[in-house]
């Protein structure tokens, strides 16, 4: 019970518990771009991603730019009998809410736009602060929020949904991809790259130096 504080700090910094089975592991330095998995159940323990702050920050800023472009320009257009009907990214949400489908409308808005935006914004805020050595308020809470939100950002599923819809309508009308669609496609890749390059453990340790 009377464990000294120094001992506790040393222990908590060198040990990690598996989120899948709670087994304790000693944290060892990993070679670059490798992952450590639990020896008992195989759950991912930690990764070593070099330059994680710089790379993730660059990706998050890029992602925000693509997200803005994806909202400003036409997304998909449907050409039928000489008329062209343009849609933007948010059109689906608006039409759904007009058809008294508020639940799905909000869900689509959240998972395809608001959550990815919030995730990227939080990452830019936190990583910028780390890079510049500022100690900004609520940084840790925002980074925790970003980690929690990750499974709810579903841009790649939305992209597959677009593909399916286009195949379904292909026989009925011509579908013309707009600038926003390409920006959205780029956003999907940027978010995937963030998942690959972000090393949350290293970022937490950088924030530990704040206090």
């Amino acid at each position, binding site marked *: 019970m009377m464990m000294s504080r120094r001992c506790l700090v040393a222990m908590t910094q060198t040990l990690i518990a598996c989120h*899948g089975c709670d087994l304790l592991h000693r944290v060892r330095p990993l070679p670059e771009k490798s992952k450590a998995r639990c020896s008992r159940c195989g759950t991912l323990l930690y990764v070593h991603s070099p330059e994680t702050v710089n790379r993730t920050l660059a990706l998050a800023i890029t992602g925000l730019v693509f997200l803005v472009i994806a909202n400003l320009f036409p997304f998909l257009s449907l050409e039928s009998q000489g008329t062209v009907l343009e849609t933007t990214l948010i059109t689906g*949400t608006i039409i759904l809410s007009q058809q008294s489908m508020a639940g799905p409308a909000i869900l689509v808005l959240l998972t395809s736009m608001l959550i990815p935006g919030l995730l990227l914004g939080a990452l830019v805020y936190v990583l910028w602060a780390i890079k510049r050595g500022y100690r900004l308020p609520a940084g840790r809470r925002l980074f925790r929020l970003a980690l929690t939100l990750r499974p709810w950002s579903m841009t790649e599923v939305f992209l597959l949904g677009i593909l399916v819809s286009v195949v379904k309508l292909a026989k009925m009308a011509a579908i013309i991809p707009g600038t926003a669609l390409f920006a959205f496609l780029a956003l999907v890749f940027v978010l995937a790259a963030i998942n690959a390059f972000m090393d949350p*453990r290293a970022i937490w340790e950088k924030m530990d130096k704040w206090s």
Partner: protein
Amino acid sequence: MTCAHAARTAAGAGLFSCHSCSLLVRRPSMTGRVTVRCPRCGARLHLRKPNSITRSWALLIAALIFYIPANLFPVTITSYLGSIQADTIMSGVIFFMQTGSWGIALIIFVASIVVPIAKLIVLGGLLISVQRRSRWRPAERTRLYRITELVGRWSMLDVFVVTVLVALVRLGYLTTIQAGVGVVYFAAVVVITMIAAMTFDPRLIWDVLEKNDESNAH
């Protein structure tokens, strides 16, 4: 003075493992009903996710109930020159099969039918195995849980398809597509099963193997 512990797990060593930032925090000696927060990220700390089994079951049963109207009610209502056609998830799959788009039919079938059913069965099975204190293949059961947690989000596919369809084929033209109530129930199934998977604590699978430890979790 030694830091070494005989215990193999964080709970066995009296440590909270922060689910958010993975920091190990020593469990305070006088735990009443006080909530302990992670000193690093502020997340609530628990040895195990609170009431994991009860909450997961409740969500699972809710998802199962919503799954029925999700499949019976139409997800899209297409009107073309006065004729109206209502499509459920399954009739949408059949449409793609009949028009020869086998790949797309398979993608929708897997995302909208196979994944939700498999999730309900797997989570139900995991919950029963934990409640029966099963010692059977814990590593495989944990992997099954991990896969379930990862693939769940792909079931949102049909909700997005309906969204894009109603946006592209809307009023003012010969053909219009409207969303049907089925999509509300289906969206609920996807969200509820995702939360059910997040609520389940895979560490419970392993606790039965650790019963020699001095303080087993709760």
